[in-house]
């Protein structure tokens, strides 16, 4: 096998499934190629034939599976850092989930907000709303940068992408619809500090009775959308979730590019 082709195959095994952007893969590949070629040349000077020297250099460098695992974790941590920094810069994205959040609460539990404000004194409600907005924005920004990333076409699988996005969309909708009013209901129960602060201060007690009409009110409303009207109430949300997942999976597909490491020639750079 030609040396370049061997190297490209080895690199492809290192990066497959790492989640790294194409540009970063090409940069790291340049760096590793330089190292491996230098090592192989040194072995050749010691008397090894070129092909054997190259295999020895690749073996000494490390197992592709181990390298891939380390790169994947590093990329995940980098994505979380970037999502956090991105959130801080984009105030508009913080406002949008907050607006959606408020609409969902009003839809499922009309009159709930005045009830919570009366019980919590307003502070708990503010903390819960702000906390939920921050969490949703962080998660949303993280997912956004992952879906926008260019990836090799060979690593894309439509079925897997569709399943993944179906779960994410479903969990997001359920979390928004269920968690937000729950936080307010329990927040109203534990007092002015609200749900999030009560968790932090360790004063939350799930065994104490919930405020009448609080939690069960919204659960009944949410449940009615499924049981009250089987066709509209069940199929519409399911179809909406699948449609959303399909759109996201198709978008992910559109971000695919040719895998540079599966081509016969690698990228050449002009000397810096």
């Amino acid at each position, binding site marked *: 096998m030609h040396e370049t082709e061997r190297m490209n195959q080895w690199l492809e095994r290192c990066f497959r499934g790492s989640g790294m952007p194409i540009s970063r893969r090409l940069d790291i590949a340049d760096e590793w190629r330089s*190292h491996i070629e230098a090592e192989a040349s040194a072995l050749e000077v010691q008397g090894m034939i070129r092909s054997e020297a190259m295999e020895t250099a690749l073996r000494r460098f*490390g197992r592709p599976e181990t390298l891939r695992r380390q790169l994947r974790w*590093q990329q995940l941590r980098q994505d979380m850092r970037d999502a956090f920094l991105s959130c801080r810069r984009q105030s508009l994205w913080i406002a949008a989930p907050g607006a959606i959040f408020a609409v969902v609460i009003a839809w499922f539990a009309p009159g709930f907000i005045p009830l919570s404000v009366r019980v919590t004194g307003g502070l708990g409600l503010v903390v819960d709303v702000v906390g939920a907005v921050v969490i949703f924005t962080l998660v949303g920004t993280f997912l956004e940068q992952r879906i926008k990333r260019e990836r090799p076409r060979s690593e894309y699988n439509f079925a897997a992408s569709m399943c993944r996005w179906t779960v994410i969309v479903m969990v997001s909708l359920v979390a928004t619809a269920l968690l937000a009013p729950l936080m307010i209901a329990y927040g109203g129960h534990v007092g002015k500090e609200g749900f999030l602060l009560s968790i932090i201060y360790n004063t939350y007690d799930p065994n104490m009775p919930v405020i009448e009409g609080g939690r069960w009110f919204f659960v009944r409303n949410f449940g009615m959308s499924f049981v009250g009207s089987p066709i509209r109430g069940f199929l519409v949300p399911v179809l909406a979730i699948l449609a959303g997942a399909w759109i996201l999976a198709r978008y992910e597909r559109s971000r695919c590019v040719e895998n540079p490491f599966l081509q016969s020639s690698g990228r050449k750079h002009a000397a810096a």
Partner: protein
Amino acid sequence: MKIDRELLKGTTEIVVLATIAQEPAHGYRIVQRLRHDSEGILKFGEGTLYPLLYKLEAKGCITGQWKAGTGRRRRRVYRITPKGKKRLAAHTDQWARLVRGIALVVGEPTHA
């Protein structure tokens, strides 16, 4: 004599930062210098080195710059930053104290 991997944990960062602090270098050069300066005692696989370099770069302890290499390849040369120097100084101090503490307990090592 091969050194137990558990004993090596925690030392990789110190020796890599110390090597880069002496003189900016690319990955291959760092590996060579580590082997030479440690008289062959410290042998780090490249699979350990490069993820560590990327981690240190992400933390701001080192910076990398592309430079022309031999032939058509370019190389990334790493240089320590002020933050990296502080981290190295702190870790070196802790390591010296740790070694002294161990030596006090187990006694000075005897060489075969």
